[in-house]
């Protein structure tokens, strides 16, 4: 039996805004939120630009105990989950059977900020190898295991069905949503709150990307620092963010008369078995992921109206995915818009894939393609239509989003306009 997966709620928290509509307004205006890092003093670091959220946990409805207990990644996830659930009308207290509600949270680096903060105290700023247990926070264990992010999300929406974290590096967001779709299709849940969160603007995460020169060094001009597909690009800006979507069986949505953003019709994840951080120029595994996702959607490559690119702003990525789009979509790749929102909100590691899926849903809703900011001098080897600087109006029936992550993960997801009427 075939089930259709529809999106009935979504919420985004990304740099430069405090809610979904603020986010959408900003990226469709082509504005970048990348700034000089404020989470800590970045002076000693190679890359000093970041995408940060001006989060006010009290204003987001958290009590002081939750604020103490939750890592920033948890605060972002729970905020988005509550908002998405409220929008979809499935918040705790509604008639939904909790055992039929699941949670799938994508995340790459866990509670990195809190883990590092704890480490600094317990090790006396790195002086003691035998860290001092007496200084530990009562919540250290939660920071230690990323499952706590799924737990907090489950508690926030009252989920008692399948709950897990999906942690496939920088494709985690797409993979967590793909996982959720599969659980609904198998009848293991009727509704899933699924998405991703990451809050990696912390010294150890910034330092590890410094070490491999993956992040931008354009520290004197952070706003224009991240330039996917531009000849002058020099890496991504690390960022924090989260997005949560409410996914459900279309029949279930119909029965309760829910509003529908769109439908997810295809998903695939592949490994490239090539290198932990490098990408082969041939783009073969991303090509394959796109092909499998389109097959699952029973969609011809020529029917894709927009590609939301990984577009991290590294040269190897730009060439890798440009090649994959050409191989997977053929000549049609030249005829459709391809854009990267990382040019505006940076790369929030495991979270960004979910933010990009949410972006696709909003793009379908409003018939608008968000642009690639800071793209003034296209790399001659990147010869597709990357929607430089300005958003475009375009009716979107079928869109594709892709992700690529350390560890060789390549993922693709297909979203479509819902033609089945309300619910």
């Amino acid at each position, binding site marked *: *039996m*075939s*089930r259709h997966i529809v999106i009935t709620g979504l919420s985004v928290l990304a740099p430069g805004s405090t809610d979904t509509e603020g986010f959408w307004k900003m990226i469709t205006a082509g504005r970048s939120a990348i700034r000089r890092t404020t989470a800590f003093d970045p002076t000693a*670091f*190679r890359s000093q630009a970041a995408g940060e959220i001006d989060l006010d946990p009290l204003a987001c409805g958290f009590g002081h105990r939750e604020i103490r207990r939750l890592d920033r990644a948890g605060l972002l996830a729970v905020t988005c989950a509550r908002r998405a659930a409220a929008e979809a009308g499935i918040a705790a207290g509604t008639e939904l059977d*909790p*055992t039929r509600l*699941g*949670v799938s949270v994508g995340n*790459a680096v866990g509670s990195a900020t809190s883990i590092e903060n704890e*480490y600094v105290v*317990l*090790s006396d*700023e*790195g002086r003691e190898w*035998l*860290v*001092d*247990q007496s200084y*530990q926070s009562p919540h*250290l*264990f939660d920071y*230690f*295991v990323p*499952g706590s992010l799924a737990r907090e999300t*489950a*508690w926030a929406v009252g989920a*008692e*069905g*399948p709950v*897990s*974290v999906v942690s*496939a*590096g920088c494709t985690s967001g797409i*993979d967590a949503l793909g996982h959720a*779709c*599969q659980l609904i*299709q*198998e009848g293991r849940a009727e509704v899933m709150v699924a998405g991703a969160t990451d809050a990696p603007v912390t010294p*150890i995460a*910034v*330092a*590890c990307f*410094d*070490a491999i020169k*993956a992040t931008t060094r354009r520290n004197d001009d952070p706003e224009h620092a991240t330039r996917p597909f531009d000849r002058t690009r020099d890496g991504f800006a690390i960022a924090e963010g989260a997005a949560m979507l409410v996914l459900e069986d279309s029949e279930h949505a119909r029965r309760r008369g829910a509003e529908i953003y769109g439908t997810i019709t*295809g998903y695939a*994840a*592949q*490994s490239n*078995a090539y*290198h*932990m951080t490098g990408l082969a120029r041939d783009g073969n595994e991303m090509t*394959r992921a796109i092909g499998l996702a389109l097959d699952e*959607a029973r969609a011809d490559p020529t029917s894709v109206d927009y590609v939301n690119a990984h577009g991290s702003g590294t040269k190897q990525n730009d060439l890798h995915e440009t090649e994959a789009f050409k191989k997977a979509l053929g000549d049609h790749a030249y005829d459709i818009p391809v854009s990267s929102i990382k040019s505006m909100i940076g790369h929030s590691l495991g979270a960004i894939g979910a933010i990009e899926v949410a972006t696709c849903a909003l793009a379908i809703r409003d018939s608008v393609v968000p642009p690639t900011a800071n793209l003034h001098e296209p790399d001659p080897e990147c010869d597709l239509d990357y929607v430089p600087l300005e958003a475009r109006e375009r009716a979107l029936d079928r869109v594709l989003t892709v992700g690529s*992550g*350390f*560890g*060789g*993960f390549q993922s693709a997801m297909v979203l479509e306009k819902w033609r089945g009427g309300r619910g």
Partner: protein
Amino acid sequence: MSRSASTDVLITGLGVTAPTGLGPKEYWNTTLAGGQGIAPLQEFDPEPYTARLAGQITGFDAAAHLPGRLLPQTDRVTRLALVAAEQALEDAQADIGELGTYECGVVTSNATGGFEFSHREMRKLWSQGPQHVSVYQCFAWFYAVNTGQISIRHKMRGPGGVVVAEQAGGLDAIGLARRTINRGRGRLMLTGGVESSFDPWGWVSHLASGAVSTATDPAGAYLPFDRRAEGYVPGEGGAVLVMEEADAARARSGRAPYGRITGHASTFDPAPGVPRPPGLQRAIELALADAGLQPDAVDLVVADAAGVPELDAQEAAALRAVFGPFGVPVCAPKTMVGRLMAGGGPLDVVCALLALRDGVIPPAVNIGELAEDHRVDLVRDEPRFGPLSTALVLARGAGGFNSAVVVERPLS
């Protein structure tokens, strides 16, 4: 997106890195003999800390198993995972090149990442500065590292995945690998979980769960279902399994399968203060329904065996509700190795497969007097012999994760 019909999914190869043995053979022999893998920490002096016992893999020489170039870029956890993966592929006599690189994928679980590696790099960062951080830190520390490194080493370009649910995640990874085969996305999957984080910073983080036993006698520290239960002992290691679509496995001249994975389910407990029952019983019932089995078909339950009185009581209540008091033999091999986070569930699946193969249930060790109220038939002290065809493996993770896997003997 559509669901394909459920396929027969076999386990054809086992890889084990456990405190009671490297490789399934050594692990199984030690387990049947009721061996003890729990001991005082050896890597550093645990004297300053509130707990000092762990299930450790001693004498593991990574250089003897892995190419030298992999050593600088891997944490201990990844070295153990790579060794387990290689064992499993060799055991299955599987040739990835022959099967097709895109037909073979990897799904693992890991809940603490490359912790010791990360500890060293954070130490350099905070004591010497960011320019001293290793180029490998960006991937050696994250939860996806084992899937990535295994797929690269064995050129497995099929689906890659990582699912995390604290101690329950290893079973969920097996569930996801099975789903991947069911959906026709791969013929062979390496799946399971391996965990290791016993540097001082990792150790203190483990202790922060608040449920680690402070006992100093290895024989008296982790006593699930016992009247004296007062916590668990963390362990390291885990298992990696080769899972294959049955027709594909039969088509190649590999070894006879160990068994089949026929059911999986996961559930979550209600939030604190919500007056609803915990989710373990539901996970058991859903997994059995997934396998198309009634409770009386189950010959053996490999328990989660928390070692914390209220959690033991919860598990015992779930078992009584499904199987009746003393209604099914219960096995707790974790008593020999401790709780291995994401590695625990897959290692227990190995135990279940070997128990079915050999018709013997290994004993729980160190158990004195069972708490009366539990009314569970815990196999203890001596192995119990008899024909076995179906086992249920349970795992729970802190916070409310419940997962169950049904394992059956291969079809004859």
